[in-house]
């Protein structure tokens, strides 16, 4: 009997192949597969809520030898996030005007479905080497998405992204090799054993360094802004909202497995995270283009999530890491909405210079409103999920008297308010776009997707009991 987990990991690949084979029908096939995937994700979540986490070993071979797919709360939440954001982005992609003739290999759809399959496999995987392979698929398909537009800058960014990604993966592989040499096994169950010895900790350090490159954490984020800013809107939404999250997810998984022993890594993560917040905000304040601003805000928000992971402390005794998970979820929704909205604005106005937002007589009202709501969620103001995440985080930090980190989270909030209000206030400023003659473009599938996601971020604020319940079933 075919279970949801196996369908979740295999269906996207089959759909990708079908889309590649039949470029003309790629859009419908892609959309159908995405929605089916969302359905399975929902089924998985419901099953988990009903009877808790479950592990399925592939091919019937037990853990150290074979590979097991662990479907627990955290994984289900991430898969749900991917499905939700993915369907919205797919909606936006459906709406985009098809180029003259369908792209040679079906263009966006096969690559998106491959990304979806890779992410599902990654979230469910319980084996370090398997993670390496899934990261590779993810890297390649993400680069494909980045290079879709074919512009010079996009290709340059794609090359940098792929080379950095490969370097990161090889570091990860080096860590796996050392882990194998040290503990003799490569599945996540080895992590507690690795944490004891110095060599094991070096192995984990290498793995984390690889993850840091993949997650574009602060000192290693050089490749990300160019890639995310120059990609097509649906692609940049996927990259910013989902792809960079996978590395953070694995870091969280390691933190869960490692428990107290991995504290120095968590401290490093927190330090890098706060650095990212400050650096990302500084660049966002100085960015002149809308997409570049949003990309730098991703650097900052990734920093915030890393900080949350870092200061979460030993998962055995505090559930603060759940706040980090919720922050990941809310950031995914909000950032995807923001990129889709930014894409729509750039599409309508023909440029995305921030200073020019109110200079033309065209007024993409819906996109601007979606951007504003997404900004509210990113800043972390109520009633959005961002606020709930930050509230739980601050409450936990205060309970542990970690005042420096509270101050840093607060500074991050203020800085994000500063650079995001640059854009929102520009949309409200007077100018030809509010003159009586200003015309509003017709509603577009992209607007629907952006608004849907933004409202999703709001609704998640009210319904964040569901993610927390799901996270309870995580195996630590």
């Amino acid at each position, binding site marked *: 009997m075919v279970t949801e987990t196996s369908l979740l990991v295999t269906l996207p690949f089959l759909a990708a192949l079908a889309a590649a084979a039949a470029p003309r029908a790629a859009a419908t096939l892609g959309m159908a597969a995405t929605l089916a995937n969302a359905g399975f994700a929902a089924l998985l979540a419901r099953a988990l809520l009903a009877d808790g986490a479950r592990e399925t070993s592939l091919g019937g071979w037990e853990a150290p030898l074979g590979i097991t797919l662990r479907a627990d709360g955290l994984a289900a939440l991430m898969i749900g996030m991917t499905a939700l954001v993915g369907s919205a982005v797919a909606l936006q992609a459906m709406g985009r005007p098809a180029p003259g003739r369908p792209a040679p290999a079906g263009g966006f759809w096969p690559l998106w479905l491959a990304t979806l399959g890779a992410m599902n496999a990654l979230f469910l995987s319980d084996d370090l080497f398997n993670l390496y392979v899934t990261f590779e698929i993810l890297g390649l398909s993400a680069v494909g998405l980045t290079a879709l537009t074919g512009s010079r800058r996009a290709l340059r960014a794609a090359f940098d992204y792929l080379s950095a990604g490969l370097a990161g993966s090889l570091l990860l592989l080096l860590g796996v090799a050392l882990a194998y040499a040290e503990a003799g096994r490569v599945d996540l169950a080895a992590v507690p054993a690795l944490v004891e010895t110095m060599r094991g900790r070096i192995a984990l350090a290498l793995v984390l360094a690889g993850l840091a490159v993949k997650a574009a954490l602060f000192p290693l984020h050089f490749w990300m802004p160019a890639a995310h800013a120059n990609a097509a809107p649906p692609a940049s939404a996927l990259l910013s909202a989902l792809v960079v999250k996978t590395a953070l997810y694995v870091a969280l998984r390691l933190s869960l497995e490692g428990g107290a022993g991995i504290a120095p890594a968590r401290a490093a993560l927190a330090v890098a995270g706060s650095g990212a917040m400050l650096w990302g905000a500084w660049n966002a304040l100085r960015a002149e283009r809308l997409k570049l601003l949003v990309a730098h805000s991703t650097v900052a928000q990734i920093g915030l999530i890393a900080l949350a992971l870092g200061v979460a402390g030993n998962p055995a005794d505090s559930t603060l890491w759940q706040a980090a998970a919720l922050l990941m979820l809310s950031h995914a929704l909000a950032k995807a909405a923001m990129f889709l909205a930014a894409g729509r604005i750039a599409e309508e106005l023909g440029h995305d210079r921030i200073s020019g937002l109110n200079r033309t007589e065209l007024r993409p009202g819906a996109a601007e409103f979606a951007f504003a709501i997404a900004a509210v969620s990113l800043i972390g103001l*109520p009633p959005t999920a961002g606020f709930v995440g930050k*509230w739980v985080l601050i409450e936990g930090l205060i309970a542990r008297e970690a005042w420096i980190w509270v101050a840093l989270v607060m500074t991050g909030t203020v800085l994000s*308010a500063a650079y995001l209000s640059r854009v929102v206030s520009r949309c*409200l400023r007077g100018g030809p776009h509010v003159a009586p003659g200003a015309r509003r473009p017709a509603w577009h599938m992209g607007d629907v997707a952006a608004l849907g996601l933004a409202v999703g971020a709001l609704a998640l604020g009210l319904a964040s009991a569901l993610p927390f319940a799901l996270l309870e079933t995580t195996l630590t």
Partner: protein
Amino acid sequence: MTELLPLAILMTSLGVAPAILAMPDDWSRLRTAVNLAAAALKLGLVAWLSLSVAQGAEFGLGLEIAPGLALELKADALSVLFLALSSVLWLLTTLYAVGYLEGGTDRSRFFGFFSLCVAATVGIAMAGNLFTFVVFFELLTLATWPLVVHRGSAEAHRAGRIYLVYTLGGGLALTLGAAWLYALAGAVPFAPRGVLGDLPQTHPVAVTAIFVLLIAGVGVKAALVPLHGWLPVSMVAPAPVSALLHAVAVVKSGAYGIMRIVYDVYGVETMQGLGLAAPLAALAGATILWGSFRALRQDDLKKRLAYSTVSQVSYITLGVALISPLAAVGGLAHLIHQGIMKITLFLAAGNFAEGRGVKTVSGMDGMGRLMPGATLAFTVGALGMIGVPPLAGFISKWYLGAGGLDAGQPAVIALLAGSGLMNAAYFLPILYRAWFRDPPADAVPKRRIGWMLAVPPAVTAGFVLAAGLLANAPFSPLGWTRFIVSLEYL
């Protein structure tokens, strides 16, 4: 079904907001109809709610957000007081705004955010615990900012930026304080006479620090002295915005927040135990004097009214900070009285600006003859503010004075007299110019004042008179505040 009443009241404006936002600009008839229907429905529901609360019914419903964190709506006597004020005045101000913005641009956006503001105010009124209060408090900031920058001019945006800096800063302080309190005390519901239990004894320093943070956060909107900078600056907003928001919704939610924190989170005994009441009262007193002092020299009419708001709202804070039932009655009553008086003044000022293009005090010569109706309403409001007896202002000043004496602070009487004098000093010249000076020769009407602009100030002026004259009636604001204080203090 009845316990869904608070949610229904909240949804009348929260549900309407997205619908209006989505409406294209030129559907003004439908938009006005929806707006007024929603306002009227809310009024009806609030009336029903207040009736049942008067008979002692309690309403409450909650939504579990996260482990140990819940959004709660609770309608008790104190919330009904603020609820009634905001829903009545919202109906009038919507009517006024429709008339005021005829032919303006971006009206859907304006009315969408307008009803969002009131939804936030209603949420604040009915918040059942500190977390819900923080959520709606921040929502209010977000909903009011687009209204402040509605005109889109560089000046409006400068004001908007200052407004955002103040209110977001306050919001952060409030969130930090509330999170800290949640970390120490677990859930913090609003219950009469405080919920801190033995916390003040075990963590006195932390509890005091939290109090400072909470009051700082809420104080920004209550325009306490060091944090009042945004109020005069955001007078650049259109008249209905400054009328409803900066005179009633935003400022009052700040004062209401102080009330909730003092009565329902800390409780009167803890306030006295930790010695927090006296500094708060001193701060309120300082604000009263400073606000009036600054109002003396403002030539811009709305700026003068703004500074007067800064000082008048601190009466409420003073009433709350003086730990005595009489002062509480005075403070609570002033919440309503100041609201109706100040909205009358702002609406009338809006009429002067719209009708005659008069924005400054020096331009008010002979306004009594040019626009008798608006000036009469303005006069009633102004005299009420000074505290001339038959009007509402006198009642609350009377109780505040009595409360001050009851709390053993005779200085309060001197303060009230002094600020009354200053109020007279900055309101009477306006009245003198309006009534006893001849209008300038070249006075030309800028725009005909339709009934939509003329009726609301008249109605609110009537409220001011009624609140003063019928103070002892069972359902008057004073009566209701006595009912509340009897719950709080017994």
